[in-house]
């Protein structure tokens, strides 16, 4: 997982001219001591709700969220605010979005340290990768086949397993010729199980209908590509 500690140049002067948010410029530009402590308090006054919300979205419990929050504050202050210094002012994007990314990465790192396993967001609609992959193929090849009828990739039948592997390889090849943007679209929908409305917002589609239409067009292309490779049935 990314650590969020990527370091880039930072304008020497942390004042208004640097383009930094005022509360950040005060923290980074203040003289160590009382002045900087006050600036840090002001920074927290403005952003603590946001930091806490991110912590809550990662932590499994309320207590865990407070633990993550405390860790985030500690890490943001570490080494003379090294992480905050990595922020590059940018008129076209928001400091708060950047702060969400950095905070989330810290929380995810902390989760892994505390629980000893990678953090993974689970939602009611989320499905296991194997099932998601199968559903992807079903959507591509036969909409009316139920999920259960499609062979499990964990089958112990060697021939069947080989055929499933070949099918997945063919699918990967077919997807590989699509543009990255189209690949993201399909993976968000069929591998990551992201709702269409969210995909539209994230990928900057003007409406959800555009997303539906694009996905349908891509499925047609993939179906044709697979058929050209001799696949006309999802059953291995």
């Amino acid at each position, binding site marked *: *997982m*990314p*650590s*969020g500690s*990527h370091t*880039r140049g930072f304008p020497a002067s942390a004042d208004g001219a640097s383009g930094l948010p005022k509360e950040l410029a005060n923290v980074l530009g203040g003289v160590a001591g009382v002045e900087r402590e006050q600036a840090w308090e002001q920074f927290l006054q403005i952003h603590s*709700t*946001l930091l*806490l*919300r*991110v912590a*809550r*979205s990662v932590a499994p419990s*309320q207590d865990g969220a407070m633990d993550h929050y405390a860790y985030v504050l500690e890490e943001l202050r570490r080494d003379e605010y090294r992480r905050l210094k*990595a*922020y*590059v002012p*940018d008129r*076209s*994007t*928001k400091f*708060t*979005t*950047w702060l*969400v*990314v*950095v905070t*989330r*990465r810290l929380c995810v790192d902390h989760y892994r340290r505390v629980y000893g396993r990678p953090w*993974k*967001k689970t*939602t*009611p*609609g989320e499905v296991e990768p194997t099932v998601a992959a199968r559903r992807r193929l079903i959507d591509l090849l036969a909409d009316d086949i139920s999920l259960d009828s499609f062979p499990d990739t964990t089958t112990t039948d060697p021939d069947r397993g080989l055929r499933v592997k070949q099918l997945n390889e063919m699918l990967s090849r077919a997807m590989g010729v699509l*543009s*990255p*943007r189209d*690949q*993201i679209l399909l*993976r*968000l929908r069929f*591998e*990551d199980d*992201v*709702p269409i409305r*969210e995909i539209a*917002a*994230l990928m*900057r589609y003007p409406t959800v209908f555009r997303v539906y239409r694009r996905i349908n067009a891509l499925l047609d292309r993939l179906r044709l590509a697979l058929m050209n490779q001799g696949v006309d049935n999802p059953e291995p």
Partner: protein
Amino acid sequence: MTNQSQQSDGHLTPQEVSRFVDGALSPAERHHVEAHLATCSVCRAETVHVGRLVRARERRKRLFVVVPVAAAAAAAGILLLTSSPSEPSPLTGRVFRDAGDGAQRLEVVAPIDDSTVVSDSLRFVWRSAGTDVQYALAVTDSNGGPIMSETTADTTLVFPVVPNLAAGQTYFWFVDALFNDGESATSGIHRFIIPP
């Protein structure tokens, strides 16, 4: 600015992720970032999660923007009621629905609208919207100026000491339910009065 390569662990930089989520990438940067996202499920999951958090925050900010309008609408409604008691205030409802993105409403329990409350024992209560939900409560003055805001997983918030509440003034409050999937529901705007 961000057309540098990925960071040392091979993933996108925070700047690239935030610019992607904010839709601020140049065509060249977008090409680079999308090429990475097409094959990296970790960064894809990150952009989805960050996008959810950012959009949920923007929805809450829109609510704050709407509050002054709603306060004005409430005042207009009072005037309408004064001049024509049989007519409801259509403006308040319309403004509220816009603010809530058509989401379902949370049912509030206390304080009931226009009740007088003692400022040193402010207690807000609403009905549960389900399990694993965060609630964000905000109180504003009649100009929409934020007085206080707080988040909780409980359906009750008690403020033992509340500064800045003037005697004889009407204040507005609302609570949003923030679901795990980034969706939200709102109570709509309610009122209470600090006694003279």
